């Protein structure tokens, strides 16, 4: 980790600022996110896509059982990067927030409301003594009750921002390069899925030893993808067959 001279007393507690105004434990939590497998989200006027990659770190691992994209409510999905265990706890909280809103007001919660509630929890863990920050970033994607698409990232410091496209994890930089270059707001559903796959593939290649020519044939095994459209505002996980089809369609561009 390239933080210069090792910090001394200031990284012993979350709640103590360094003279430079940093909370070292929170900074380290950001590093934990940077070590995670890449996740990303993209939205246009008509749909939101969330995509995440998985890695076969040993051939004994049952990769199919690993989930990186979860349903929060009918109209909200979430992906994470960083410490999966922290993510799981926060996603459970998000589900509670969504379901409580339904109980209390008889209506769906907005994506913003759920993301904010989770960001509030994360903030609390940067300020209270005796706890450590959550080492995870979350990308919430969904359709608000009013019908507009939303994509919101929360970071370990408790900040949350709305995006058109965003990536987190070890491939953040490389995925973001692709997204910045190729994103436009008018993309249709297919365009969004293909751009998500391209950005994810690029991030994967740049952060692993794998060669694009050999990876492209089996990339679909390592991709998880969730989507929701304005036309049918129910968040769904894309089937393995569909993912394979989309990966095939963009395979020419992936190896370029």
């Amino acid at each position, binding site marked *: 980790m390239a933080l210069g001279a090792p910090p001394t007393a200031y990284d012993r507690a979350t709640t103590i600022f360094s003279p430079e105004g940093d909370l070292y434990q929170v900074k380290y939590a950001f590093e934990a996110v940077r070590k995670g497998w890449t996740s990303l989200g993209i939205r246009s006027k008509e749909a939101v896509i969330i995509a995440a990659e998985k890695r076969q770190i040993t051939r004994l691992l049952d990769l199919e059982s690993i989930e990186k994209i979860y349903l929060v409510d009918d109209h909200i999905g979430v992906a994470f990067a960083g410490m999966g265990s922290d993510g799981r706890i926060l996603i459970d909280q998000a589900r509670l927030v969504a379901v409580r809103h339904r*109980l209390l*007001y*008889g*209506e769906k919660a907005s994506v*913003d409301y759920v993301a*904010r509630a989770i960001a509030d929890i994360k903030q609390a863990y940067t300020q209270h003594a005796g706890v450590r920050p959550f080492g995870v970033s979350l990308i919430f994607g969904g359709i608000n009750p*009013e019908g507009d698409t939303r994509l919101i990232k929360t970071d370990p410091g408790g900040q949350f921002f709305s995006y058109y496209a965003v990536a987190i994890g070890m491939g953040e930089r490389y995925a973001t390069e692709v997204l910045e270059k190729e994103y436009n707001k008018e993309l249709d559903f297919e365009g969004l899925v293909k751009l998500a796959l391209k950005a994810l593939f690029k991030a994967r290649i740049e952060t692993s030893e794998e060669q694009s020519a050999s990876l492209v044939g089996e990339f679909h095994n390592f991709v998880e993808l969730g989507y929701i459209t304005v036309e049918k505002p129910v968040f769904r996980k894309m089937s393995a067959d569909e993912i394979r089809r989309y990966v095939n369609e963009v395979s020419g561009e992936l190896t370029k």
Partner: protein
Amino acid sequence: MTISLPSKAGEHKLIPIPADRDNLAAKAIHGTTTVGLIVGDYVVLAADKRATAGTLIASRRVKKIVKLTDYSAMTISGLVADAQALADIIREESRFYLLTHGRKLSVKGIATLLANILFSSKYFPYIVQLIVGGYDTKPRLYTLDLYGSITEETYTATGSGSPVAYGVLESHYHENLTLDEAVSIAAKAIRSAILRDSATGDGIDVVIIGPENYFEERFVPFKQ
């Protein structure tokens, strides 16, 4: 149910709470007629103005339709204190919701929240029967009872005069009424209740709620 009260020094005695709270509820709800109906883009609420305490007419100028937000109101029958406390809670909650969510609490949200509050006090209830009317994306009308049941309606009535009012609504209400017709039918329903229910009387308040925070209050004097 019992509560513990100190009697002599240091001595606590269990005394029963009167088990007739339901009777109290029945008595309290006696003493009002309110109606609500949806017509076109509007919700019309109407209520009489009499408050009773037993056989005494305690007031002839009660406002039984209370504004909750710029786009919603509720009629109250039952214990006025309970209804006012609920209205205060809803006014604050809807403001808080606007600030935390960045959008208005829908009328369904208001009604559901009220139902939750009522249900959470099921064993020591707010003695009220409410009609919640308002406009969010379209006109909405809900009826709530003191235990927190909630039903969505196109026309409804509450209070001791409600059987009389229902008679008028049943024979005159249909969805293609004009707003003016709807207002006069609502007033007529209250008027009929005034004529036959001794606990209902002293004029008619009408509130009309429509699109874009349209909120009109009218008073229709009662003539024999």
